[in-house]
């Protein structure tokens, strides 16, 4: 360091000492004081499972649950049956009634074989009051 430099340093120090300490604005002071309070170290939410900060993938199940919940809501809504569903239901009903008819036919034939011609009519008439498909089945069988 040369003599000139030393002189310059001394001058600079002298000038700096002459400066007054500038006060920070009140708003800046408040903001600066808030920093340690706002950025306090967060406690882990699940310390027994994740002692450190939560890994990013922890939120994945939560995001996956959203479409699943939507799916549940959609499925819980009463669905308007399509024309195919209605046609299928019609066919199903036809099959169901065909099985009912078959049972009537079977019981009708049993009555016929057990009771024979004479008694059959009196029993058949009584029975057909309750289950007319037995009556029809008997008619079909007789013809």
């Amino acid at each position: 360091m040369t003599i000139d430099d030393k002189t310059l340093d001394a001058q600079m120090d002298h000038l700096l000492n002459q400066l007054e300490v500038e006060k920070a604005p009140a708003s800046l002071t408040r903001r600066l004081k808030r920093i340690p309070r706002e950025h306090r170290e967060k406690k882990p939410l699940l310390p027994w499972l994740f002692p450190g900060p939560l890994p990013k993938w922890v939120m994945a199940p939560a995001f996956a649950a959203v479409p699943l919940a939507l799916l549940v809501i959609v499925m819980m809504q009463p669905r308007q049956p399509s024309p195919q569903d209605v046609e299928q239901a019609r066919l199903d009903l036809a099959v169901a009634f065909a099985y009912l008819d078959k049972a009537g036919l079977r019981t009708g034939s049993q009555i016929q074989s057990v009771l024979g011609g004479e008694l059959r009519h009196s029993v058949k008439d009584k029975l057909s009051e309750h289950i007319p498909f037995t009556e029809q089945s008997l008619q079909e069988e007789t013809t």
Partner: protein
Amino acid sequence: MKTSVFRKILTGCVTLLISVSAMAQEDSLKDFPGYVDFGQLSDIFGEPTVQISVGESLLGLVGSLSASEDPEAAELFNRLNGVRVNVFETTSMPSGAIDLVKSTSAQLSELGWESVVTVNSQEEQVRIFMMINNDRVEGITVMTVEETEAVFVNVIGSINPEELGKVMNNFDIDINGDNDDHDDEDAAE
């Protein structure tokens, strides 16, 4: 790897949801007096060859759509709550089948069902029950068990048997697959 696991979980969830909704439909019928719990049929007869469960909403739709062509059928369907059919094909009379029919019949009698027809033999068991409340039929149950087939039918709802007979006559379906024979006979006539 992750995708495969995710797919499996998603498939599981969807299957669970579908089965839950099917069970919900079955559960909704359980409150009606005409509903019959046949028990665990598959334990004795195996997997059903025909399984039908038509609920109230579909019956109403079928009813409203049939109103113009078959008013009687429409009237009947609108008053029904559900129709359930389980058919099992068997090669011989399964053990426990006759006992099941008898125990279910006893339970139905206890619950107030009226036995209308009983065929009781070693080769064949037929039971027809009706739930009658205040002169109104609220359910019909048919159980037919023989060597080659077991049929369980449960019709739930307000039923006029006379109406049922007429509607059944209008359905042209042959579950034995003999339609061709009938067609031939009809043609010959």
